């Protein structure tokens, strides 16, 4: 079954226990994300942005409630099934890039492809395409430490899109970058959304970053609140 709804969260509850205390993050959250959306999620620290992103990425699971992705429930999948699901459907972009320090740019981009059945030749092709897209083809043989922050993040983006996933999840993708470089990265995300139809969910606390998104949701104490965007 295919609909244009990519994500459907129904009555999601999530709580942590820290010591004796139980901290409720979400208490019955409902949310839908459409195919082709570029959604920014904003909110103060502790509002649950990252937890939400983790649940969308199948990295964390809700205490109760349902998470539907493309017509299938993912909240009850096993660890191993989730691994496969992530490999097939999600591209991750982290604040600190999380590149493997001992691998060069091309090898980093190639990582997700190692989980597929592609031949070495096909993998090489995909890696080249992805690096060209982020305009880093000439840096393919460089190690992460030889690249600037912006370049590292672009390698991370290439890694996220190389296996052509439907959805990109970005956790403060510009949090560690200067304004100018941040704008470059965000433009690139915009391009991926508009030209390649990737659905993007981006967590950020930077309003100007959020302004690149098609819509912005504000999260506060586990609930979405309406808020006028000044920008």
């Amino acid at each position, binding site marked *: 079954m295919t609909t244009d709804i990519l994500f459907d969260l129904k009555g999601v509850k999530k709580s942590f226990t820290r010591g004796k205390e139980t901290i409720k993050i979400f208490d019955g959250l409902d949310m839908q994300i459409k195919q082709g959306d570029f959604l920014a999620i904003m909110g103060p620290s502790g509002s649950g942005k990252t937890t939400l992103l*983790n649940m969308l990425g199948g990295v964390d699971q809700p205490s109760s409630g349902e998470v539907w992705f493309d017509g299938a429930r993912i909240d009850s999948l096993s660890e191993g099934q989730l691994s496969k699901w992530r490999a097939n459907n999600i591209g991750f972009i982290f604040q600190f890039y999380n590149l493997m320090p001992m691998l060069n740019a091309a090898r980093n981009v190639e990582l997700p492809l190692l989980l597929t059945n592609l031949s070495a030749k096909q993998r090489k092709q995909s890696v080249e395409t992805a690096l060209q897209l982020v305009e880093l083809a000439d840096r393919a043989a460089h190690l992460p430490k030889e690249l600037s922050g912006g370049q590292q993040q672009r390698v991370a983006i290439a890694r996220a899109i190389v296996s052509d996933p439907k959805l990109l999840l970005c956790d403060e993708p510009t949090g560690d970058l200067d304004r100018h470089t941040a704008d470059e990265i965000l433009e690139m995300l915009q391009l991926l959304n508009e030209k390649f139809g990737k659905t993007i969910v981006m967590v950020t606390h930077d309003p100007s970053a959020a302004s690149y998104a098609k819509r912005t949701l504000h999260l506060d104490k586990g609930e979405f609140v309406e808020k006028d965007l000044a920008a």
Partner: protein
Amino acid sequence: MTKLLNILALVAKYGGLLVTLPIWLPFWIIWFIFEKTGINRLIANFMIATGLYLTFKNLFRKPLRLGLTCFAIMIAFLIFSVVTTLKTALNAGVELSADNRLVVVNSINFTQPLPYAYVNKVKAIEGVKDVVHMNWFGGYFQEPSQQIVTMAVDPENYLKVYEEVVIDDEARARWFGNRRGMLIGRALATAFGWKVGDLIPMSSNIFSNREGGHVWEMEVSGIFDGRDEQFGTNFAVFHYKYFMETQTFGGDWVGWLTLTTADPALNEKVAKAIDEEFSNSQAQTDTSTEKAFNKAFIEQIGNIGLMIFGIVFTAFFTILLVVGNTMILAIRERTGEIATLKTLGFSARSIFGMILTESMLLAFIGGFAGLGLAYVMVEGAKTFLAQFLPGLVLSDAVAMQAIGFMVLLGLVTGLVPALNAYRLNIVTAFSRR
């Protein structure tokens, strides 16, 4: 001050490189050849194809640490292999003793003699195949410190009883026919450069020659080899008759008897029969299997031997412990990366495999380097030590034991971090930073 430090650092760095040259140069040459011939790329491609590429890259991410850890492991396995080889060589007498051979000695102690008449009496006992009598000559060459294990024997029976002494028919005939002839082992021949036909003045630190002095002239009739590589060929045998006719003590006595039984099953019966035969004689006997006799002899070295091996093995295991600790910590540093890999969709099982493979590889690289170095050292020391400690061979059994410990090391050091990685929760891993 900083300038001085910089200069010192350069000196230290290149000095250190220079000093350790023999250790890393071979590795570097291999690497260089691999790089030039494209074998490196082949290996890398193979690694990628088999999903080992990440493991490979992880292993080499900190070359210095890899080198140091491998070096420590190498040392551990070097010590293990060499000491185990020494131990095996010491015990070779026990391991190589024939099943059907018995040794008859004076019950007071094996240094006390037996009457010559015992030889024929023992031969007449049922179940006894061949008997040879031997006398300790206390031989040395030129200097008392250059001791040579030398025994006066009955030649024909000696070669019958000791089948592992291998010699061609020509030499055998030459020895039987020459009253002053002696057979020397290959190791002895090599050590002193003696050839067939050489006349050797052999001295005794016990006996005196009737012609005066303590020197007997003997001619090398043949050089024998051992049937097994471990059989020590560091001794000489010569004619009992020549010995008895020329030494001053006189009398018809022998040091001890070695005999073979028709069947190992008869050993116990024969031993008992011999000891009973002489229980009322002036010299009582004590008969035991060759294995038991050799074992008792080694036991004389006593608990010291036990202590040495105990100490060395403690050392071995401690190095493994220390190295293992380092390896576990090294992988713990990578928690964030492992979490990233998991987020990208690498399964817990494949990450488990990756880490275990890495620790296995490390154990094998270091371990085989140590085993190889031990082999080179043992081979090098073999001829040099053949006179004192014959049968020095790094046996397959020792190598197998070493490989077993490598597997164990790889498993023990890899299992804990691999399990940690397997269970690693991505959310907590990221929030920990």
